[in-house]
């Protein structure tokens, strides 16, 4: 039974799924049901050190850089419309091979061309982030954040982080003003 988190909550992945070595972080939202420009949402992951910054630009995993240098984190590709049931975008993380100098993986979603299309997260329905155990495809934790979204155009959905030798997941649901560029810069990526 997956743990359902609310904003700010956290769970120990290692305790919930003993022997866990690899996870899939699934992100989803519903395609718009009204007429007009589709929402193109992009998921990205920031591999961060203790100080909350990336080591290099290669630690910013997004649609133009789908895989980390060591292969431990991989974005499986862009879904342009949010159509279909289940995860719209997924990020695979091989926890066992994440380099020791990385402390956490922060997962964010941004709305592509939000300003031009006059879109924001308040217009996106049924958004979630979930963590799935790759070994048995069982969902370990989930965070439904629709009601935590409003006028933001970039949002940190959640993060997977090390804590006392365990891997934990935290439900963040925090908006960020500006798009993907400013978000990346805040994590020390030069863009």
């Amino acid at each position, binding site marked *: 039974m997956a743990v359902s988190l609310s904003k700010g909550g956290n769970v120990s992945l290692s305790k919930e799924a003993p022997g866990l070595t690899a996870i899939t972080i699934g992100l989803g939202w519903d395609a718009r049901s*009204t*007429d007009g420009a589709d929402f193109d949402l992009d998921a990205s992951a920031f591999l961060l050190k203790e100080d909350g910054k990336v080591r290099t630009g290669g630690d910013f995993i997004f649609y133009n850089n789908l895989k980390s240098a060591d292969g431990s984190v991989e974005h499986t590709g862009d879904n342009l419309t949010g159509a279909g049931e289940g995860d719209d975008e997924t990020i695979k993380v091989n926890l066992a091979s994440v380099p020791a100098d990385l402390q956490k993986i922060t997962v964010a979603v941004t709305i592509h061309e939000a300003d031009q299309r006059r879109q924001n997260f*308040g217009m996106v329905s049924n958004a979630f982030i979930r963590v799935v155990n790759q070994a048995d495809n069982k969902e370990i934790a989930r965070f439904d954040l629709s009601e935590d979204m409003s006028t933001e155009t970039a949002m940190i959905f959640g993060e997977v982080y090390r804590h006392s030798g365990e891997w934990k997941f935290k439900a963040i649901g925090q908006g960020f003003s500006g798009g993907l560029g400013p978000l990346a810069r805040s994590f020390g990526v030069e863009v």
Partner: protein
Amino acid sequence: MKELVKGQKQKLSELTSSQKLTVSIKLSWNQGSDLDFSCFGLDEAGKLSDDQYFVFYNQKKSPEGAISLSDLGQDQAKFEVDLEKLPIKIKRLTFTLAVDGASYVSGLGSSRLTVADGQGQEVLALPFSGGDFAQEKAVMLFEIYFKDVWRVGAICQGFERGLQALLEHFGGEASDGPQKKAPQESAPPPPKAEPAAPVSLKKITLEKRGESKTVDLSKKPGATTSFHINLNWDQAEKKGWFFKSKADLDLGCMLEMSNGAKTVIQALGGNMGSKTQPPWIYLDKDDRSGAAADGENLYILKPEHIRKVLVFAYIYEGKFKFTELNARITIKEPNGDEIVIKLDNPDSSNTFCAICLIKNVNNNIVVSKEEKYFTSHPQADQAYGFGFEWTRGSK
């Protein structure tokens, strides 16, 4: 007072503790075409599972009165909501706006939706204007919804097709879209489950002049699309010095086809129209006495070929007045629904009444109540811009 922007959400408790709310919509609109304000009371799945919670001009109250529409004007409406009275099954109230005719919501000027609490204090405002919309004819403006607690949200999104698209969106009509949440059991799905009953708009009464109803022809491929217009009136008798006379009310129409052809169908002059060739509009009989229970009937067999049809009634050489006849027409739509138009502002001096206008707008048939009185055919023609040449006729 809090101002919301498109997409913004907020817990209601952060605005007010009041459960009685007044949602007022004031528009700046100079496009001429009609505006429909509605409130959809939806279930947990976001569907209109109970028609009685579709509050609009023809149903101004939900059964227990938790939602009511008041102050309905050309460009404004006010909804009174009592969340405490609302049945538990209603989880979402969505306030919508639809425009008729060739206009789009993007034609709006600076407009505003406000929410006031039980004391009349404004607690929230949602300013919007045409720039917030694209080529949309029916939009969801605002919602009050229950998810753990009552919340409000500014939506300002909608559909290119009018009210019908909104009804479909909320009506749960069969959709070919992505399947949601397949049922757990592996049993094969029952053969074509009954789609949720489409919203029935049966027996619509157009009460005010200018009020209208849209019938979408493109929705029913292959199905019959004809309109049947019936004129009836109460029998009246006048005792003269030597003889009795009965009221003779005649039904007719001025029409313009999509190819520009124009004609007048009426008993006077003997043009009864045709069933088999253009304009595919005909009168079935001339009831001189009003004695036949079914009155007079006009059929529009191929509404897709019309541009506009002005349905009128006139008193033929009678000593009667519209005030004595209680005349009304009933329009049967292709889908079986009926539109009723009563002449409830009768004029005692004029003998010609333009009752309703039927227009084809992008293959939607828009029926609007006119009930305008004229002294004669030419005067009405002039008002509606058909441009016929008139000569005197008799039957």
